[in-house]
């Protein structure tokens, strides 16, 4: 025992003299011999370097003397610091994992991206972007919805999350539309999976036949190795068709020289034809388009009613300028003096 007291005094003297390493070594020697020495653990808690070791030293003090309130308060402070440190470390780890997940997602390696995003969420549960990534790329519609709900809870003000969540819920409620959307995005494999799932759950032979036809069609496209064309580019391409015809006819009407024979109201018809042609293309190319959301407050690729309205409006807008063109021609014909036949 006397050697314990002596060791403790030497350690305290060394610590007071600023010889921390020596003091710590002496104290470690002491606690090895006398692990129940409260004073030794108390001094050690101030001399060891790492936060974890300090916490252990304090815990040992409290095991020996649970009534030591000073050390209890000090331990609480140390634990708070430790939690902050751990949270910071987790945040850094999560950010690293998410960066990797994002890179994999950009390379279209969705599986790895999803795994990394899940790991990032294990480190930091309130990582909104990681939830969004899962909500965007998970092949499981239920998981997508759950992830988006989580992201929405974390940041209710994010309009993109809200619309993605709405879309995901719509896809779940309308699996056929979801499959069509996947096909439009060129994700033939995923579309086939959805169709196959639907075929297994078909309520009657008619429904099964319809789904089976879609499966055969997509498999045909895959077999033929048909290149995927984005619906937006199809809409843009088809939008040019009718305006090109109208412009050609309007130029003929203006004697192929709009500067010499200007008929401006014919040129004013061009934006109408473009708008009409766009609506016709939109109604034909089944795609999830913002127009359905903004004009018809609908998710998905437009209900039959919305498509009908778009088609009717499109034809109206395309035809009106053409009718004006014909009326202008007829008016000119009415005042036309037929020239004599050349000899």
């Amino acid at each position: 025992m006397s050697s314990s007291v002596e060791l403790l005094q030497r350690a305290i003297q060394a610590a007071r003299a600023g010889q921390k390493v020596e003091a710590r070594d002496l104290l470690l020697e002491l606690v090895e011999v006398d692990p129940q020495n409260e004073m030794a653990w108390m001094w050690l808690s101030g001399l060891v370097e790492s936060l974890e070791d300090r916490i252990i030293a304090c815990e040992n003090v409290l095991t020996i003397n649970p009534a030591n309130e000073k050390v209890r308060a000090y331990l609480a402070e140390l634990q708070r610091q430790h939690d902050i440190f751990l949270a910071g470390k987790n945040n850094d780890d999560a950010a690293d994992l998410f960066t990797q997940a994002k890179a994999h997602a950009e390379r279209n390696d969705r599986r790895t991206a999803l795994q990394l995003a899940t790991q990032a969420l294990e480190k930091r549960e309130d990582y909104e972007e990681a939830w969004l990534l899962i909500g965007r790329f998970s092949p499981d519609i239920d998981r997508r919805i759950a992830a988006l709900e989580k992201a929405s809870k974390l940041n209710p003000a994010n309009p993109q999350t809200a619309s993605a969540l709405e879309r995901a819920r719509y896809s779940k409620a309308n699996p056929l539309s979801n499959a069509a959307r996947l096909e439009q995005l060129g994700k033939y494999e995923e579309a086939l999976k959805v169709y196959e799932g639907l075929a297994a759950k078909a309520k009657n032979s008619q429904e099964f036949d319809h789904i089976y036809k879609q499966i055969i069609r997509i498999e045909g496209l895959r077999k033929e190795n048909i290149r995927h064309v984005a619906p937006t580019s199809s809409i843009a391409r088809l939008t040019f068709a009718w305006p090109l015809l109208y412009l050609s006819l309007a130029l003929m009407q203006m004697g192929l020289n709009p500067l010499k024979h200007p008929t401006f109201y014919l040129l004013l018809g061009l934006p109408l034809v473009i708008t009409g042609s766009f609506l016709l293309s939109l109604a034909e190319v089944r795609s999830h388009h913002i127009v359905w959301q903004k004009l018809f407050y609908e998710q998905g690729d437009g209900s039959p009613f919305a498509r009908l309205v778009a088609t009717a409006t499109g034809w109206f807008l395309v035809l009106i300028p053409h009718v004006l063109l014909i009326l202008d021609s007829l008016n000119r014909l009415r005042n036309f003096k037929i020239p004599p036949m050349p000899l």
Partner: protein
Amino acid sequence: MLPLNDTESNRYSFLPVMTVILIAVNCIVFYFEMFAVGDDYWPFFMKYATTPRLILSAQGGGALSNVTAMFLHASLFHLVGNMLPLWVFGRRVEDACGPWRFLAFYLLAGTWAHVLFVLVQSDSRIPGVGASGAIFGLMGAYLLLYPGGRIRTLVFISFVPLWPRIRAIWIVLYFVGIQIVPAVQILLRKADYSTNHWAHLGGFFSAIFILLFLRPEAFARYLSDTTV
């Protein structure tokens, strides 16, 4: 050489509705021309055919005359000579476009045929009629979309009729090729031909616009280098 039929079948639709309608309208208009207009055809053609001088001076029917001229024909031979290729080349082009866009392309090709005719023969007072400009547009479009297509064609070798399946490219090249010399003569020497060669060339080159009129699926096939 007379193309009779495209031997390949349709992919997207069963009946080429618009092609049939166009043929029917052309025949009805020809019937009207023969029996209702009669000998007093000059005022009728001045109003409803494309006359370069009138077009350039913004007189007469303008755009309307340009469209109506596509449905007028000078003789029964002219009508049959146009309607047969319209059926042969139009059927599958319509299949790739859908009826309404096919109609738009047909009118566009006819209009561009007239544009070239008007620009090259700007002094002409002779009205131009016929669907041939638009049909040359269909030929060009057919060549772009179905370069490997084969056409059952009636040919006479030493007065012996034969109907082999000939690659569309040879038929189209033949019909376009026979336009070139007269077209150059019209341009350089102001030669006078009863056939509207520049309109044929104008229609043929407007075929490039067919890509704007294709169904999305047909366009994807075109980009994938598979049969449209």
